[in-house]
């Protein structure tokens, strides 16, 4: 199992400072998630696709990842249009799909794909070790960061362990059926996986203690903030927030809303006096 397949690259996005990557991705994701229309998410998706091209990722692998995400979204397409109130668009038997419902699902689909692409392009292009390193610099609790790092590191180990046991089962002619023998075998498999991972983690912890581990990973090479990092970060945030400003009038509405509220309050006050 190879989880860092997108981190092997050499584009300028791969080389960006991971700290800047986090500070860019988080507000951008919020910006995309806050979009309400269809036009803004489409524009965001286009921006993400441009980033994908710039980072020269393996498109085949990327599409496989996107399919996984869209399987979940597919279920929304089945349920949401029929349960969302609004103007009828088409009808199957007694079920009425509304226009608003369909637009809503479309918007969700566009937004989720844009967010996933953005996360893969920006965060996925760094190794997990540098990301953890960046999280420590961003003052996240060390314990959480270590937990995140070990979780990533050992999920592959557990998977290897599982593959080995699966081989051991196969060479002894195991065929899954729906009987007690099969369930028992699967139960043993899971039980053994837990015991082995536990024992392995103990051994690794001991090995770490022998090398002087004190809940702290010493870091050899530190990050260096370059001009391109800052420029990229600011550019991304401006792009995503201006998409909202251009395509949706959320921002232009805020001053109007404040103006109206003040007027109302003043009106109330004058009436009271």
């Amino acid at each position, binding site marked *: 199992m190879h989880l860092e397949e997108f981190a092997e690259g050499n584009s300028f996005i791969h080389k960006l400072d991971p700290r800047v990557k986090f500070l860019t991705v988080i507000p951008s994701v919020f910006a995309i998630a806050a979009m309400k229309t269809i036009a803004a998410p489409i524009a965001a998706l286009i921006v993400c696709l441009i980033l994908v091209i710039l980072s020269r990722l393996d498109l085949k692998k990327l599409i496989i990842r996107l399919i996984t995400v869209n399987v979940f979204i597919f279920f929304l397409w089945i349920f949401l249009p029929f349960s969302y109130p609004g103007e009828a668009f088409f009808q199957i038997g007694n079920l009425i799909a509304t226009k608003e419902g369909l637009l809503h699902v479309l918007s969700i689909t566009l937004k989720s794909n844009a967010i996933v692409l953005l996360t893969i392009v920006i965060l996925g292009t760094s190794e997990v070790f540098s990301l953890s390193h960046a999280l420590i610099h961003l003052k996240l609790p060390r314990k959480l960061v270590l937990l995140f790092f070990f979780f990533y590191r050992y999920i592959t180990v557990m998977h290897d362990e599982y593959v*080995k*046991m699966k*081989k*051991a*089962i196969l*060479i*002894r*002619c195991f065929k899954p059926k729906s009987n007690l023998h099969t369930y028992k075998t699967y139960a043993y498999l899971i039980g*053994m996986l837990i015991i082995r991972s536990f*024992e392995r983690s103990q051994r690794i912890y001991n090995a770490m203690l022998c090398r002087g581990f004190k809940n702290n990973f010493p870091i050899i090479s530190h990050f260096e903030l370059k001009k391109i990092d800052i420029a990229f970060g600011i550019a991304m945030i401006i792009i995503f927030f201006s998409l909202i400003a251009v395509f949706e009038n959320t921002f232009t509405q805020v001053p109007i809303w404040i103006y109206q509220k003040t007027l109302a309050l003043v009106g109330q006050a004058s009436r009271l006096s």
Partner: protein
Amino acid sequence: MDNINIVDIRKLHFSYHHGQEIFKGLNFSLNKGDKVGIIGSNGSGKTTLFHIIVGLIKPIKGDVYIFDKKRTNEKDFFEVRQKIGLLFQESDDQLFCPTVEEDIAFGPLNIGKSHEEVKLVVKDVCEKFSLSGLERKVTYRLSGGEKRLVAFATLAAMNPECLLLDEPTSGLDEATTERILRYIKNHVETYIVVSHDFEFLKDAVNKIFFIKDGKMNLKETL
């Protein structure tokens, strides 16, 4: 011995993802009664060859004939695995049931033996490997040598016609090595041993091959 062919591999090509080619047109054949040793440097593909024979990994190119039948899919190999037993390099990888008894019973139960038969097999095999008394022990708490013997026992329980042994003596003391040697010489008719232990190979086999540059070569002198 009337030359019954067990394994016949023709023009095998194999490489792991993003790796260099391990086998470049390897040919290998094993007849009934052959006791063969395979040597080769680390990463030369000895373990990979074993895994290809029992169908755990599929070749990129080339044909695998086992018992004179071409084997391609999972169904073909189901039959192969009943007759050819594979001993893993790490016994920890081979044993996964809580107790010794259950681990030995696992294979025979899979090929449809009744519970009464299986109990007899377990008893018989445990006696053969002097494991009596360990039946109810938890496998992962056994010593390294005991684990290897239990792994052997799980294979013997299937009553295979041929054994593939991947470094059967690594990390074992002389007494256990001797026990394994005695067992395979007296009870197993056909086997392939991969080992770096030259002394053991000399005693155990009558032909040695070496894998070099993705091909199989016969070593002239033992």
